């Protein structure tokens, strides 16, 4: 136990002081901060010119349809960043201004002789930015409101009734069924867990194989037992991984709170939809630890079978295949959480760590399912620990050709 802690401490120190580890962590943290700042960056780059340059229009009320309400219209325009000039009354003068780019367009309000309703003529230099249909629509609705109000006033409608007509209609939505699809959360969770479990597990393989390659292994196995080495290393890398992940999550949380403007806060609404509480977070943590353990032990054995670091990639193929297939199983069944494939994915020990946490966060998983799934995962982890300690002891001092599974089993039996 004492040796295991010594190895654990050394492995942690060795890995967290590594330049590559520090740089990767810093880059990831910066990326998170950057992503959280995208709304602000967009605002500062794109937003400024837009705000400063309000749209300028000349409004000519040829037939005095708007009448005294023209000032109200100018005020209304200000709220949507329009600068409406009502002093220019000459059409030619306005057109010249448009050509000189002094204004963006001219709006002429006329009376249709036949229908007696208002007519709008819009003149602009034709740029897409200014010619937005929505601008014209907004203007039309403004004039329409003014016209309706005028007609109603003439018909002696009471001001109260006018207020009712002009008031915005409030609305609220209610879904009888939860229309919010939580499968996105489940997919994201399986993605994150896959990366964490596989990435940090891979570190164990690299660490073991590099010790073997540099022949430190011989000194190491005479200083302590293989069991201590493999357990110490696995736990250490797990802690390093967990630490890094928590640091990144913390960074994400803080920068989200600091940098994301409240009106863009979509995550809160998604989070509100999720089944997040101490219990579900704890379960996710358990899945990370157990899932990581399963893959880390497999990786430790893989690392011990090679004599050269170059051989590591090909040696890892079987484990990588298991991991990838399990991940895809979890990822694609996330969209159909009630299917039997999804249930299988969350119970099968190699994929449950990728599948179950997402399902739990999305909600609607029975407790017995979680208990069975964790139990199977735990048994698998313990079993793999025993097997890998044996295989590791047999393989660490084998140099030469890479061991295949048959030879590995034979060596493990001998040990």
């Amino acid at each position, binding site marked *: 136990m004492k*040796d295991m802690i*010594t*190895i654990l401490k*050394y492995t942690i*120190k*060795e890995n967290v002081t*590594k330049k590559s580890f520090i740089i990767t962590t810093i880059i990831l943290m910066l990326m998170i901060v950057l992503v959280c700042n995208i709304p602000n960056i967009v605002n500062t780059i794109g937003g400024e010119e837009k705000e400063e340059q309000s749209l300028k229009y000349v409004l000519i009320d040829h037939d005095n349809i708007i009448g005294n309400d023209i000032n109200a219209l100018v005020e209304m325009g200000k709220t949507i960043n329009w600068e409406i000039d009502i002093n220019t009354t000459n059409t030619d003068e306005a057109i010249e201004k448009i050509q000189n780019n002094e204004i963006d367009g001219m709006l002429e309000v006329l009376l249709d002789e036949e229908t007696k309703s208002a007519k709008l003529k819009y003149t602009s230099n034709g740029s897409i930015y200014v010619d937005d249909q929505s601008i014209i629509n907004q203007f039309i609705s403004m004039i329409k409101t003014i016209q309706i109000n005028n007609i109603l006033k003439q018909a002696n409608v009471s001001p109260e009734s006018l207020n009712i007509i002009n008031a915005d209609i409030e609305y609220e939505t209610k879904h009888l069924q939860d229309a919010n699809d939580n499968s996105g959360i489940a997919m994201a969770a399986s993605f994150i867990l896959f990366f964490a479990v596989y990435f940090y597990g891979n570190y164990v393989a690299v660490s073991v194989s590099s010790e073997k390659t*540099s*022949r*430190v*292994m*011989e*000194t*190491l*196995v*005479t*200083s*302590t*037992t293989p069991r201590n080495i493999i357990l110490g290393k696995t736990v250490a890398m797990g802690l390093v991984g967990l630490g890094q992940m928590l640091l990144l999550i913390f960074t994400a949380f803080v920068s989200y709170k600091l940098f994301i403007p409240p009106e863009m806060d979509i995550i809160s609404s998604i989070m509100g939809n999720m089944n997040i509480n101490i219990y579900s977070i704890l379960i996710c943590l358990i899945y990370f630890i157990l899932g990581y353990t399963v893959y880390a032990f497999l990786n430790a054995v893989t690392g011990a079978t090679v004599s050269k670091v170059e051989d590591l990639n090909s040696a890892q193929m079987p484990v990588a295949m298991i991991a990838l297939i399990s991940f895809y199983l979890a990822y694609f069944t996330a969209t159909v959480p009630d299917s039997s494939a999804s249930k299988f994915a969350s119970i099968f020990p190699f994929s449950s760590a990728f599948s179950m946490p997402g399902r739990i966060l999305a909600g609607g998983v029975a407790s017995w399912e979680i208990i069975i799934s964790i139990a199977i995962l735990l048994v698998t982890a313990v079993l793999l620990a025993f097997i890998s300690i044996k295989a590791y002891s047999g393989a660490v*001092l084998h140099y030469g050709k890479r061991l295949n599974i048959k030879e590995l089993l034979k060596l493990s039996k*001998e*040990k």
Partner: protein
Amino acid sequence: MGLRIEKVSKTYGDKKVVDSISFSMEKPGVYGLLGANGAGKTTTMRMILNIIQKDEGEITWNGKKVCKDNVRFGYLPEERGIYGKAKLYDQLMYFATLKGMKKAEAKEATIGWCKKLGLEEYLYKPAEQLSKGNQQKVQLMIAVIHKPELLILDEPFSGLDPVNTKIIKEIIMDLIKQGTYIILSSHQMAVVEEYCQDIVMLKQGKTVLQGNLNEIKKSYGRNNLLIETYQNIEGYIPANFKIIDKKANGYEFKIEKEEDAQKLLETLVENKVVIQKFELKEPSLQEIFIDKVGE
């Protein structure tokens, strides 16, 4: 008391790499494990250290199994390996702690050994910055830092310059004085002759020669004749004398009987040949090795 190895065997596949080896060390000293490449020396050492499981036989230290709880042992593997990126201090502390030393003791030993071996300036530098010879010294430090009772040295002098060889020789001498049981494997027979009272010689896993080095040599008889002279004496040499070596200042012959040497000496004196040195010797370990393991 001491280390006993009894009828130990190991088979890989269908090849018996170690075949029923037995030897014992009753008192501190150096035991030589000799043999050509692939004779089974490293496998034997690893079995003694219990990092490879033996198929048959028994290995005991003071009647108990050889393991960390029963004996403090140190191992200098043939293939050198240290953590390249780790600081010297960190890895020495790491191994010292793993070998059961307390932090304060480990620190004292680490700094003490580095001073002794002239590696003080590298203490806080990555080990990969050290020269090959210095890395080897580090490896030796790792093997002896915890004052082992049983020390196994696999080719401790390979690749060392004369200065470093001398330093390491002195350290081994010190360890012998302190009562360490040392098993040493080397291809350099001169080294083995210098340290080992007892040897076991292996050939393809089998013991071909074993016992006290002096006795082995005696049993070979004093059949080497060394004559130092600046005159040409080849005319006086009997036909049954085999020239092993011919130097500017003399000859070395292999003879069949000691009496033949006496006769030659008489002949030389009668003919007034000036002789600087006339010596009957036992064969060197080198010759014994080639005789037993060669061909």
